[in-house]
């Protein structure tokens, strides 16, 4: 068990040598990036209990930020991704404060509205986004003269970013901040009676989630080579959510495992792009019925049941 992490990491680093298929490498790149976005959503939904559809908005805004930095302002890929994080952080702070003051259901609705608004702006603010045509021809990133061209090389950029982002999310989740976030989610009035202010904690989760999601979107843009309004497609949001729910909201490792599984599964089932959405939806419904709290939640419930039986 203790060896699982290093072994997995070595295998991931060695992936380009294990397969010659650029198709598989492409799947792997988008897979780790979507897993990062899912892990960020897990912080917001799984830890802080905020069902936020704003994630797809941050993902796309990050993609546009990174692309515009490179194509219009002459910046590097790296500064583009950094700016994607910064812009999303500021944006999340600005919309998060009023959003978090609304009630639970209103929050969900407002977050959907934000996501739809982002897609609308990307289509209509042609001066900046170039409208439905999008921004094509994003160049491969480079560092110290090395160009990460092609999926096999871009893989190292995506993997490096993902490891850093996941390390941050893991540190946050296992810290006292993570403990308090899940306490607020379990029983907010009790946390308040114990001296905890819920709002700053929720805002922290929301902002960190947005920064990480936005940066992942920024990296994704350069994997796709083009940014257009399709980056706001709900297919992405659906994937993030399925990964979190199947893995088990609030479980870092559960979500990570589900992320990897959900990359492999749809490829194995791949009949056509249209059918994929249906299959995804079907998997979600079945999983929700069988394990409403995900794999990690299901395992936890078994553990509690065993303990209960022992205490009788």
């Amino acid at each position, binding site marked *: 068990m203790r060896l699982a992490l290093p072994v997995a990491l070595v295998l991931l680093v060695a992936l380009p040598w294990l397969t010659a298929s650029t198709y598989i490498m492409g799947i792997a790149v988008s897979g780790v990036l979507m897993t990062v976005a899912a892990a960020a959503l897990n912080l917001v939904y799984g830890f802080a209990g905020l069902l936020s559809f704003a994630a797809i908005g941050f993902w796309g805004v990050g993609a546009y930020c990174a692309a515009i930095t490179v194509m219009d302002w002459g910046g590097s890929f790296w500064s583009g991704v950094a700016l994607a994080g910064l812009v999303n952080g500021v944006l999340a702070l600005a919309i998060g404060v009023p959003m978090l003051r609304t009630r639970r259901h209103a929050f969900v609705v407002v977050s959907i509205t934000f996501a739809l608004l982002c897609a609308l702006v990307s289509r209509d603010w042609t001066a900046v986004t170039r409208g439905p045509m999008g921004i094509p021809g994003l160049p491969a990133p480079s560092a110290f003269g090395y160009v990460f061209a092609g999926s096999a090389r871009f893989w190292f950029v995506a993997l490096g970013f993902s490891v850093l982002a996941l390390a941050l999310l893991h*540190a*946050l989740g296992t*810290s*006292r*901040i993570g*403990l*308090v976030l*899940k*306490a607020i989610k*379990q*029983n907010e*009035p*009790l*946390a*308040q*009676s*114990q*001296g*905890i*202010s819920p709002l700053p904690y929720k805002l*922290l989760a929301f902002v960190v989630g947005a920064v990480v999601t936005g940066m992942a979107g920024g990296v994704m843009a350069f994997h796709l080579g083009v940014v257009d309004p399709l980056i706001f497609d709900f297919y992405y949001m659906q994937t993030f959510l399925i990964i979190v729910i199947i893995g088990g909201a609030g479980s870092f490792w559960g979500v990570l495992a589900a992320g990897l599984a959900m990359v492999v599964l749809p490829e194995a089932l791949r009949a056509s792009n249209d059918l994929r959405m249906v299959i995804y939806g079907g998997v979600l419904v079945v999983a929700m019925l069988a394990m409403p709290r995900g794999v990690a939640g299901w395992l*936890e419930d078994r*553990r*509690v049941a065993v*303990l*209960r039986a022992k*205490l009788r």
Partner: protein
Amino acid sequence: MSGPVLEVRGLRKSFAGVRAVDGAAFSVRAGSITGLIGPNGSGKSTAVDCISGFQRADAGQVLLDGADLRGLTPQRIARRGLTRTFQDVRVYEGYDLLQNLLVVAQPFVGVGWGGELLRSAGYRRARVAAEARARELIELVGLTRLVEAPAAVLSYGQKKLLAFAGAMMSAPRLVVLDEPVAGVNPTRINEVAEIVRRANAGGTAFLIIEHNVEFITGLCEHVVVLDRGAKLAEGPPHQVHQDPRVLEAYLGVEAVA
């Protein structure tokens, strides 16, 4: 004689025309164990909600050590040294007993998010102290055997004890307990009284809401009786329980039941 740790003056709170608290006034002497009793629906829990910041009172004043608590959030009031438990018992079901108590903010005040994320020296010191205190309290309420069990497996009475420990965690000046032994196994009620007495010996004052007459009589030096949101009587428990007005208030409501 020391002064009051809590003073409530002319407290009022209505819900859509129902006057839940209607001019209640009473005080809790520092270091004392005071009872707050009254028939069902007399406004006890609502008064506690107003005192602890969970409800905004329509009128009146709440003073903690002489300082007005008006407009403060529950978390600010808790940090000032007034904690409470809830009538509908509340614990973090998914957390084990230790985690339940480590959520409490007080031991970590001043550490900051950076320190918590990077596990700074200040954080680790606070964490060691907090864990020691948490284990002490778990021992006090007799749950040491279950320290690593998720709170979900506790019985109703055990959850009340855990909630009680949570309210004690920050070493508050005053703890308000809303029905600490309702639903608790009768054989264990004396133990709860003993736990309160021991915590009280450490200097913590208690305001206890409870319908169990024996529990209140054995524990409280002073009892306040609420009826229809206002104070009906107060005094030593045996005296209050013989007061004809009090008997009538209870009979008026409960004789029918």
